C-alpha cells in the first residue's frame, strides 16, 4: 500500500511517521500525523451527515481538525449527475493544523459522479474507496465515462478499494423489516463504520447520536447502528483493508482546557447570545432566510430561554427594519443575511447610521454578484459593506478569521456597536460558516463586560437655565450620542433620517451643520478604538508581508509555515478590523518592501490599502467559490520573495 502522505505538498506540514505495528487482530497499524478524507456522493446520500459524524468522532478523540463541506445549491439535484455531487472534506492531525487540506489522501466515492467530480483533486497514491454497486453502465454513461474506471486501469496510480457498499448494507440489514430502498439508505453509515475502523475513531458518540436522532423510529435507529457496525466489522475482517491508521491526539497543539468542535455559524450564534448576556440586554434577531446565513436564525430561535427573540420577517428589509426598531427600544439588535440581503438592507443601514443606534449586520458572504453561488464562499462583499450606501455612511467592519473565532468576533462587533451607537458589519463567509474546528470553551466569567448606560435624565442646560435632553449631544471621548429608550420619562425625543442639528437633533437643512454632521459621523467611526495589528515576523528579517483578512487566515498561515519550513522568510499579519483599520497599519505596511494581499475577490482590501496608504500592495485573487489552497499561496509568496 502506498503511503498516505506522499506528495511534496504535505511534507512541509509534517510527514508520515514510519512506525508500524501489528494489532491484536493481526492487521498492521500504521501511525500517521495527519490525514485528509473526502466523503463524496449524491446530494441525497447523506455525505454531510457522514462527514459531521466523522468530525465529531475525531474531535472527541482529541485531534486537531478543520472541515470543508461543499454542496450544490439544489436540495436534490438529479441523482447520479456531476452537479448533484455533495462532498465533505476533513483534515485531522496530531498537531495544530489550519486548513481543511489541499488534496485528500482518501476519497470515499459513493457513485461514478462522485469519483469523476473529485478524482482531479487527488494526488497519485491516494486511497479511493468506491461503492461498486453504483458503477453500472448507465450510471457511468450519465457522467461520460466511456469505460469503467474501476476496470480500465485509469486508476492504477491510486490505491483502489472496490467495495459493494449497497449490497453489503442490504445484507447486513436483512434481519430488519425494511424495504430494499429503506435499507439502502443506511449505506452512508456503513461507509462511516468502515472509515471509523480504518482510523480508529471512537464509536460511542455516533451510536448515541443515531439513537437520539431516530428516537421516534427505533427500527431505523437500530438499522443505522447495525449498518455502522457492519462497516466497522467489514474493515476488520476483509483482506482488502490490510492496514489501519492511528492519528494520535493533538495534545501539544492545544492549551489546557475543555474543548468542543464548533462551526462558524454556531460560534457566531453563541457569540451573539454571549454578547446579549454581557451587555445585559435582550437579543433581538430580525432575519429572512438566506443561504448560508439561515443556520444562525435556526440556532438562535432555539434559545428563547435566554430571552432571545427571533423574528422571521417578510423580507430582508423588514428583517433589518424590525431589528432597528428593537434597537430603538433598547435591545441588542441583529440582522443576519448574505450579500443579496445586504443589498436590500442598504437603505436601513443608512438610517441606522443617521439614527446612531447600535445594530449588528451579519453578512455570511457567498459567491456573487446577484444570486451567484449560494453555497460557495467568497469575500467580495467587503466594498459593499464599506461603501454600499447613499451619502457618506461609514460603518465599522469586523471579520472573523476561523470558525471558532466567529464567537469572539461577534462579541467584538457588539462592543463597537454598543459603545459607539452605530451599525457594525460582521463579515463572515460560507467557508467559515459551515467549516468547523476544535474550540476551547471560554470561561464565561472572562468574557468582556459590554454593559451600556441608557440615558436617564437631561444632558444640556439651555441659555435660560432649563435642563433639557438633547439626543445628539455626544460623549466627547467616543462621539457616541446618548441611547435614550422609550419608557424613560422626560427624555421624549424624535429622531429620523433627515439631517439633524448637532446637539438638539431637530431637523436642520443648514449647510454648515450638514458638513459638520457628516464629518462628525465619519470621525466617530474613524475613532473607534481597535487593537493594533500584530505582525508575525519571527526573524524580523522578512522583506515580504502577507496581509489577509477574514477566512483566508487558515490557508495564508499554512502557506507561511511552508515558506518558513523551507527556510524562507515572510511576515504575516491578519486584519480583524477593516473599518477603521488598526492605527499602526500604515507603519506596518511601510516596514516591508513588498505587501501581498490574498483575497477571495478581485482585490477589494488591496484597493482600500492602496487608496488609503499609497502602498503598492500586490493583490492575489481567487474567486472559484473555494478557499485558497496553502500550496498555491506558498507559491505566490515564494514568487514575491524571489522577485
Amino acid at each position, binding site marked *: 500500500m502506498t503511503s498516505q502522505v506522499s506528495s511534496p505538498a504535505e511534507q512541509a506540514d509534517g510527514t508520515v511517521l514510519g512506525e508500524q505495528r501489528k494489532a491484536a487482530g493481526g492487521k498492521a497499524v500504521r501511525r500517521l500525523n495527519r490525514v485528509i478524507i473526502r466523503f463524496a456522493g449524491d446530494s441525497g446520500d447523506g455525505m454531510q451527515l457522514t462527514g459531521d459524524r466523522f468530525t465529531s468522532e475525531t474531535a472527541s478523540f482529541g485531534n486537531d481538525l478543520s472541515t470543508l463541506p461543499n454542496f450544490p445549491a439544489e436540495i436534490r439535484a438529479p441523482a447520479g449527475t456531476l452537479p448533484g455531487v455533495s462532498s465533505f472534506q476533513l483534515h485531522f492531525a496530531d498537531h495544530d493544523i489550519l486548513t481543511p487540506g489541499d488534496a485528500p489522501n482518501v476519497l470515499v466515492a459513493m457513485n461514478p459522479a462522485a469519483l469523476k467530480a473529485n478524482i482531479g483533486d487527488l494526488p497519485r497514491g491516494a486511497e479511493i474507496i468506491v461503492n461498486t454497486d453504483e458503477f453500472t453502465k448507465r450510471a457511468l454513461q450519465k457522467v461520460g465515462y466511456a469505460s469503467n474506471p474501476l476496470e480500465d486501469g485509469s486508476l492504477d496510480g491510486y490505491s483502489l478499494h472496490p467495495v459493494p457498499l449497497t449490497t453489503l448494507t442490504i445484507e447486513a440489514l436483512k434481519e430488519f423489516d425494511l424495504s430494499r430502498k429503506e435499507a439502502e439508505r443506511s449505506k452512508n453509515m456503513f461507509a462511516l463504520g468502515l472509515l471509523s475502523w480504518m482510523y480508529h475513531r471512537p464509536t460511542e458518540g455516533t451510536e448515541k447520536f443515531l439513537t437520539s436522532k431516530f428516537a421516534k423510529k427505533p427500527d431505523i435507529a437500530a438499522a443505522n447502528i447495525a449498518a455502522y457496525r457492519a462497516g466497522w466489522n467489514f474493515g476488520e475482517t476483509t483482506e482488502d483493508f490490510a492496514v489501519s491508521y492511528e492519528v494520535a491526539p493533538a495534545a501539544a497543539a492545544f492549551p489546557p482546557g475543555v474543548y468542543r468542535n464548533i462551526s462558524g455559524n454556531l460560534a457566531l450564534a453563541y457569540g451573539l447570545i454571549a454578547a446579549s448576556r454581557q451587555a445585559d440586554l435582550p437579543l433581538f434577531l430580525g432575519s429572512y432566510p438566506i443561504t448560508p446565513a439561515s443556520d444562525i436564525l435556526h440556532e438562535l430561535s432555539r*434559545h428563547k430561554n435566554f430571552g432571545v*427573540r427571533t423574528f422571521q420577517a417578510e423580507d430582508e428589509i423588514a428583517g433589518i427594519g424590525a431589528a432597528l426598531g428593537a434597537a430603538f427600544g433598547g435591545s441588542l439588535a441583529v440582522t443576519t443575511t448574505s450579500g443579496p440581503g445586504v443589498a436590500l438592507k442598504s437603505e436601513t443601514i443608512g438610517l441606522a447610521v443617521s439614527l446612531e443606534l447600535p445594530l449588528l449586520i451579519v453578512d455570511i458572504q457567498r459567491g456573487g454578484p446577484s444570486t451567484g453561488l449560494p453555497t460557495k464562499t467568497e469575500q467580495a462583499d467587503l466594498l459593499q459593506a464599506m461603501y454600499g450606501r447613499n451619502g457618506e455612511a461609514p460603518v465599522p467592519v469586523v471579520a472573523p478569521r476561523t470558525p471558532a473565532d466567529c464567537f469572539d468576533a461577534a462579541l467584538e462587533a457588539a462592543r463597537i456597536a454598543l459603545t459607539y451607537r452605530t451599525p457594525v458589519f460582521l463579515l463572515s463567509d460560507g467557508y467559515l460558516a459551515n467549516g468547523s474546528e476544535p474550540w476551547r470553551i471560554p470561561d464565561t466569567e472572562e468574557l468582556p463586560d459590554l454593559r451600556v*448606560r441608557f440615558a436617564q435624565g437631561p444632558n444640556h442646560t439651555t441659555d435660560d437655565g432649563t435642563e433639557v435632553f438633547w439626543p445628539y449631544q455626544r460623549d466627547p471621548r467616543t462621539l457616541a450620542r446618548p441611547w435614550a429608550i*422609550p419608557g424613560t420619562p422626560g427624555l421624549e425625543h424624535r429622531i*429620523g*433620517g433627515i439631517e439633524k442639528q448637532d446637539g438638539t437633533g431637530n431637523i436642520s437643512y443648514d449647510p454648515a451643520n450638514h458638513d459638520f454632521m457628516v464629518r462628525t459621523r465619519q470621525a466617530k467611526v474613524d475613532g473607534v478604538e481597535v487593537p493594533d495589528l500584530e505582525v508575525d515576523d519571527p526573524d524580523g528579517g522578512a522583506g515580504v508581508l502577507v496581509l489577509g483578512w477574514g477566512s483566508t487566515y487558515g490557508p495564508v498561515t499554512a502557506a507561511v509555515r511552508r515558506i518558513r519550513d523551507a527556510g524562507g522568510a515572510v511576515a504575516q499579519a491578519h486584519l480583524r478590523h477593516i473599518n477603521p483599520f488598526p492605527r499602526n497599519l500604515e507603519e506596518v505596511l511601510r516596514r516591508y518592501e513588498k505587501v501581498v494581499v490574498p483575497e477571495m475577490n478581485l482585490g477589494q482590501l488591496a484597493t482600500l490599502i492602496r487608496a488609503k496608504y499609497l502602498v503598492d500592495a500586490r493583490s492575489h485573487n481567487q474567486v472559484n467559490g473555494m478557499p485558497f489552497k496553502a500550496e498555491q499561496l506558498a507559491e505566490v509568496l515564494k514568487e514575491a520573495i524571489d522577485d
Partner: protein
Amino acid sequence: MTETPAGAPSSLGDSPRGGSSGKGSSPGGSPFGDALALVPKAEAEQSMRDFKSDQEVRWCPGCGDYAVLAAVQGFMPQLGLARENIVFVSGIGCSSRFPYYMNTYGMHSIHGRAPAIATGLAASRRDLSVWVVTGDGDALSIGGNHLIHALRRNVNLKILLFNNRIYGLTKGQYSPTSEIGKITKSTPVGSLDAPFNPVSLAIGAEASFVARTVDSDRKHLTEVLRQAAAHPGTALIEIYQNCNIFNDGAFEVLKDRQQAEDAVIRLEHGSPIRFGADRAKGVVRDQATGDLKVVAVTAENEAEVLVHDAHAASPTTAFALSRLADPDTLHHTPIGVFRSVDRPVYDTLMAEQLDAAVEQHGKGELGALLAGNDTWTVVG
C-alpha cells in the same frame, strides 16, 4: 449627563431591563387582553398641550394633516398613558412628519418601512403604545409588503393611514389610491392603474381591526382612535385627508353637508346600516348573489336592512361593505369601524414562547450552552 449603569440581570419580559411593565391596568374584555394593559399610566392628568412638541409644524397651510394632528393630540390625554411609553413611527411623505410634532418618543424612518420598524419595537417592548403614521404612497406602494404582513401577524400597532389619493411631498404624482384616468404630472394623459381600496386590502390581509374616518370630522376620528387604541393587535385606520395643493377637494363629496348625506354610510356596531335624508336608504344583502347593495328602505324591506356586526368572525361581510363605495365618485362610502375581532396578538405570543422556554428548560445558562454535549479535556 446623568446616566445609570445597567442594573439587574435582564428579564425576559417586556422591557430591556424588566423595569416598567406591570404598572398597567386590568385586562379589558378581549380574550387576548387589553392592548394597553402593560403600558404604564400617566401619574398626573394630561392636556392636549402635553402632547405638542416644540417643533414648528410645517405642513402647507390648509392641509388636512393639521386636523388629524389636533385630533390625535386632543385624544391622547383621554388615553391617560405615560407619555414616555408612547412611540410614533413614520415612513416618508407629508404625513410622516407627524412624529416630530408629538411630544412622545418618535422615529421618522424611511419610505414604506415604518410597519417593519414598529413591529420590532412593539414585539420587543410590550410596555409601549406604538403608533404608525403613514400615507397612501408610503403604506400601499413602496411599503405594501410590510403593511399586509403587519396586519396578518396582528402585532400590537395602531396604523394611521393618511389617504389623500396623491403624492404630495414629491409634488403631485398619482398614487396607488388615485382614481383611474387621474391627470397628474407623471400621467399627463391619465393614469392607467386601478386603485387600491385600503380597507378592502386590509380586510383581505385578515386585519383584526379596520376602520375609516375623515380628517375634518374630529368627533368621528376621535371615536375611531379610541376604539383602535384599545384593540389588542394591529389596527388600521384609513383617514381620508385633503391635500389642498395637489388634490384639493378629493373627499368633498363626503364633507359637504348636503352631498354627504347621500354619500356617507356611517357604520355603527349593532345598528342597521341606514343613511341618506331621513335615513331613507339602507344596505341589504342581495339574495341572488349574497353581495350587498343599497336600496330605498320601505316598510316591506326594513327588516332586511343589514345590522352592522363589526365583531363577525368572518371578514366576508366587512369586505362586501368596503366594496360599496364607488371608487370614482365615492358615493356610498362607509366610515367607522368595519371590523374589530379578537385574534391572538403576535407580541403576546412571542413573549409567551419565551416564558414557556424558561418554564421548560430553566433560564438559559451560558456556560452550559457553550459546552454542549460533546466535549473533551486537554490536561496541561
